């Protein structure tokens, strides 16, 4: 079991404890990761931008930004949200794929949860596809070719992607 699998399993167990769709996730056998999405689904707009933490730098509206190492889609930072908030009126997906990205400021690897924001048509801005550590879709826990607007009330309609820090990878 590689590191990513262990992380995914840990996250899935956390999810099984914390999310009511327990049966659904348990059947995945550790394949799906669920992010804890702080302050969602509603975050006040004035608190929204840029949502960076003191220990990081870079432009969250740029595809080069360190958190986006395995992202595929439209950056919520360009769509009315941020790296850790969904745009107004959208719904965050409770399950998603994860990547492991290195923060250039402290040189540490972090697990990043790429929760999709759902329920409105594609934002269409800041399209970004990076595939560091991305897996084929038969290993969905790390696959970014899937639409992760799953388990939402609003269905599979995809708007944009976030990049939420879940924690240090080690």
């Amino acid at each position, binding site marked *: 079991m*590689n590191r990513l699998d262990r992380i995914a399993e840990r996250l899935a167990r956390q999810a099984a404890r914390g999310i009511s769709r327990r049966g*659904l*996730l348990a*059947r*995945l*056998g550790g*394949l*799906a990761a669920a992010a804890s999405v702080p302050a969602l689904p509603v975050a006040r707009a004035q608190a929204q931008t840029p949502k960076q933490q003191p220990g990081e730098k870079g432009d969250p509206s740029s595809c080069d930004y360190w958190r986006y190492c395995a992202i595929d889609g439209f950056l919520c930072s360009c769509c009315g949200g941020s790296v850790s908030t969904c745009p107004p009126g959208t719904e965050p997906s409770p*399950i998603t794929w994860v990547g492991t990205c290195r923060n250039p400021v402290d040189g540490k690897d972090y697990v990043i949860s790429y929760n999709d924001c759902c*329920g*409105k*048509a*594609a934002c*269409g801005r800041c*399209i970004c*596809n*990076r*595939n*560091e*550590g*991305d*897996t*084929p*879709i*038969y*290993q*969905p826990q790390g696959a970014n*070719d*899937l*639409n992760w*607007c*799953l*388990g939402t009330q*609003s*269905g*599979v*309609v*995809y708007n944009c992607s976030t990049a939420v820090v879940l924690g240090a990878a080690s």
Partner: protein
Amino acid sequence: MPGLRPLTLVAALLLAGSATAQLVPEELVVESLPEKLPPHWVWVNDVAFFNMSDGRAYLIDADTGRFMGMVSGGYSHLKLGIDRRGDRFVVPGTYYSRGTRGERTDVLTFYATKNLEPGSEIILPPKKYSGLPFVGTSNLTDDGRFMIIYNFTPEQSVTVADLERKALVGEFETPGCALIYPVGPRRFMMQCGDGSMQLANLTADGRVTLGGVSKPLWDLDNPATERAVRISESRWMFFTFDSDVIVVDGSGDQPKVVEKWSLVGPKPDGWRLGGLQPSAYHAATGTLYAVMHQGGRETRKDPGQQVWVFDVRTRKKIRQIDLASPATSIAVSEDAKPLLYAAQFGVPSLHVYDALNGQKLRSIDQLGQTLTYIQPAPVGQ
């Protein structure tokens, strides 16, 4: 004509007009198409990534470059289920009652090639896989009787529809395994999360029973992707991140690796297979076409501008086609004078090459938005 008086000018114009035939009134009619797809016609799918509720597929006559027609495919359009006879196809679609919200309906719609009109429908469980289309996300059985569609909710299952009875057969759970790779009249393989493959059999009425499971067939540090190509009734060629070739046969009790070799050899010099539909197989000549570029593993979905052509029997590279522009998807027509089709996701053009000498023949421009899976006409039935 400053010297002419007005009356003379009118007369001159009338005389000039009488020299050509007057246009006749026209009747507006709808075009029709041949009963079967000609060998050099090709369907090009467009997931419409910027407007995903508006997926579609375009029908192109690659000999003339003419756009012959299209079908709409709904949200997150996958690819068409084209019957080998070439006269009919089905389209699996997802629709919301209010466009981007409301009640979800997944439906399989029947079309005839000759008119591209939507016909009968089969309502499906609203679970169809949503994402980029790959060769295994949905497939017809070889005789066209059943359509099998991969579901991901994220529970994994397949939906089977009976196209002869025009009825849903049902949804069948496939825990831990994904995608549909047909390996016989009533059999398919699936890729599983641990690197193994699962067999599944269809009963005469289309119900799925799971069969044998292989041991892991590839190293998860260098796994086979879902961008595979079928090379015979029971064999599929898979490609790993590092461009190793793994041929899996599904005719036995469990999927079995029957060949392993490399597209790039012992000294790859950074060369790598890449794209969304990065390979194509010409069955009549046993020829593999592979889109290649130079880059690290993280570039395995990137476009390439070289197509390496291999004799699959000898595993030797026999020639190279230098594309005029990069491609993420390629396909080859099935006939004896094959055309190579190439497109790049995000670039609205289909390029047509002579697959034998690599000469670029033509481009079809202003073609959609985010082109994905290319489906040449079936030939031979």
